[in-house]
């Protein structure tokens, strides 16, 4: 079964995937290791763009658009604004004393997660369909859902997750009021 066109694993798709993955990871490393905060913010944009590309490879077009609009359009502009506002203390972005122990701990955690990812027996949609574990009707419904994800996301948001949806709007309202109260001129 193909979950919509373009998700089959061809050589070209693999090359695109690894190109996006490597550039995104390198940009993320640049965010951490660059001395200049402004350049780090620009590399954060590159990394977020790579993540948007990976969303498209995973048939999550709606999330890719949301990623570009909110992360790249709003959050990164906010971060760059904050960098420019606080620029006159130009001490760059040094590490604290915990650098080497944290590097060891994070490396161990990453190794553990990698081991878990590769040793888990994932119950994949594609294998379930090809071995006939799910019915053909269910497989066709899933294809329909993946071909147009927006109605599916909207349906879930307004049925199963409607409480979380309302709470999220209250959180946004509270954060707007909080940010205004923090930065009000006294």
């Amino acid at each position: 079964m193909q979950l919509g066109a373009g998700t089959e694993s061809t050589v070209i798709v693999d090359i695109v995937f690894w190109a996006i993955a490597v550039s995104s990871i390198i940009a993320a490393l640049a965010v951490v290791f660059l001395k200049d905060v402004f350049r780090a913010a620009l590399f954060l944009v590159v990394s977020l763009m790579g993540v948007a590309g990976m969303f498209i490879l995973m048939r999550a077009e709606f999330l890719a658009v949301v990623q570009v609009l909110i992360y790249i359009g709003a959050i990164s502009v906010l971060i760059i604004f904050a960098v420019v506002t606080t620029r006159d203390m130009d001490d760059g972005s040094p590490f604290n004393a915990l650098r080497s122990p944290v590097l060891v701990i994070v490396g161990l955690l990453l190794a553990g997660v990698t081991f878990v990812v590769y040793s888990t027996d994932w119950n994949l949609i594609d294998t379930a369909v090809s071995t006939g574990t799910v019915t053909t009707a269910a497989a066709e419904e899933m294809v329909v859902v993946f071909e147009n994800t927006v109605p599916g996301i909207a349906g879930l948001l307004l049925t199963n997750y409607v409480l979380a949806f309302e709470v999220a709007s209250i959180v946004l309202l509270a954060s707007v009021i909080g940010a205004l109260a923090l930065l009000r001129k006294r």
Partner: protein
Amino acid sequence: MDIESFLLVGAIIFFIGLFGALTKRNAIVVLMCIELMFNGVNITAVAISRFVLPAAIADGTGGALTDAAQLVLTGQVFSVFIITIAAAEVALGLAIVISLFRNRDTIFVSDANELKH
């Protein structure tokens, strides 16, 4: 391009962000690293929703077929919420950083230690 590659990339981005968030002294860079961690989690959530069969469909307990099929998008709905909360978090975080800068003339988290004395 299989689920393991996506999960691995998500984990690498998450742990780069974790490393930066724990070791950087500049509060804005710490916030940027937290955004990286959110993105690693988002990749993982979307990858699992794209590749893993929901238990409700496998058991046939997901109700009507159209409703059950929607459950493959649960990870994407989680990502929508994560992005929402990230936007709220970064707005508040930067407000705190700027008010720290106004009051103490520093943006280093190690200098914000008034509660220590």
